[in-house]
């Protein structure tokens, strides 16, 4: 499989998801095939990568992602991820991934208790993540839009993330630096904006790359988050 359009992404729709259409649109814009996966479906065969989109699954009630995690599709996503195939969780999707224990830690209420919709600067870190293939230190400009993006975990987990190069994106200043008090607008621990699992195939991030892929508001900065995975997805699929 050599052409981009042969890769097929599946985008999960949970009740309350609201960025699944944006993700499908972005992926198709990049030339991939993309289709919706209903949260009660259990067949992930035929998808080269799975996207858990943003939104408010189950209204974000109780805890963000807590209820969605029990959707029938999630049992399959766990197996899919464990077999090394690519999974990305964006915003609410990231929250679902932590609730499902596919990624460590949790996302709690923003420090300032306010929903935050704004552009942020993200520094790409040296990581094992298969989704991002950019030199460490690259700064990306991508919007966030969330109420609960304040990443948190215990010290041991944090040390593990650092040691295993699982921290993929950090909030930073426009020049890539970090402020001493931290640069995360939401208060995230260690300025963490995105992490992956040890194998690097499961990636969760709070920012919304799918909103800045087709240039509608002038920026295509998010495309890089979806383009690097093609090579890896092909490899795993053995195609």
């Amino acid at each position: 499989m050599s052409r981009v359009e042969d890769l097929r992404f599946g985008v999960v729709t949970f009740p309350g998801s609201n960025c699944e259409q944006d993700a499908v649109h972005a992926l198709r814009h990049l030339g991939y095939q993309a289709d919706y996966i209903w949260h009660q479906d259990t067949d992930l065969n035929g998808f080269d990568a799975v996207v858990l989109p943003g939104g408010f699954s189950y209204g974000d009630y109780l805890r963000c992602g807590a209820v969605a995690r029990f959707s029938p599709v999630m049992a399959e996503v766990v197996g899919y991820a464990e077999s090394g195939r690519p999974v990305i969780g964006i915003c609410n999707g990231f929250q679902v991934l932590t609730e499902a224990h596919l990624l460590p830690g949790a996302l709690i209420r923003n420090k300032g208790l306010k929903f935050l919709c704004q552009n942020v600067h993200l520094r790409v870190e040296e990581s094992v993540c298969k989704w991002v293939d950019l030199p460490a230190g690259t700064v990306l400009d991508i919007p966030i839009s969330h109420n609960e993006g304040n990443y948190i975990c215990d010290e041991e987990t944090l040390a593990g993330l650092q040691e295993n190069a699982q921290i993929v994106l950090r909030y930073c200043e426009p020049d890539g630096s970090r402020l001493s008090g931290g640069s995360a607008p939401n208060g995230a621990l260690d300025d963490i904006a995105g992490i992956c699992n040890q194998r690097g195939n499961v990636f969760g991030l709070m920012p919304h790359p799918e909103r800045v892929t087709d240039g509608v508001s002038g920026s295509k900065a998010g495309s890089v988050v979806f383009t690097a995975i093609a090579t890896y997805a092909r490899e795993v699929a053995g195609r």
Partner: protein
Amino acid sequence: MKQYKIFVTGKQGIFDPAGETARHALDNLGYIGIENLRIDKYIQLDTSDTVTAEMVKEMCEKLLANPVIEDFLIEETVMTVAEEAAEQTKAEADE
């Protein structure tokens, strides 16, 4: 009928933005002597008599609390028939 009160509280050391903010706000309102303030979840569960504390514990582990960041505590109240009747009347009176 049984009633379970469940307290889902942030683990020690887990930052509580809402609590922090409220504490600051109280300081600003001039209250002195607030040392700590946490805002957590209080869940009231009314169940049939068949639901055991063991089951409620399982519900907490699975869904109602997130073990990564939260602890929980369950209190059980079994209502007597009289109490139930009283609740009923109260509910009606409130209407």
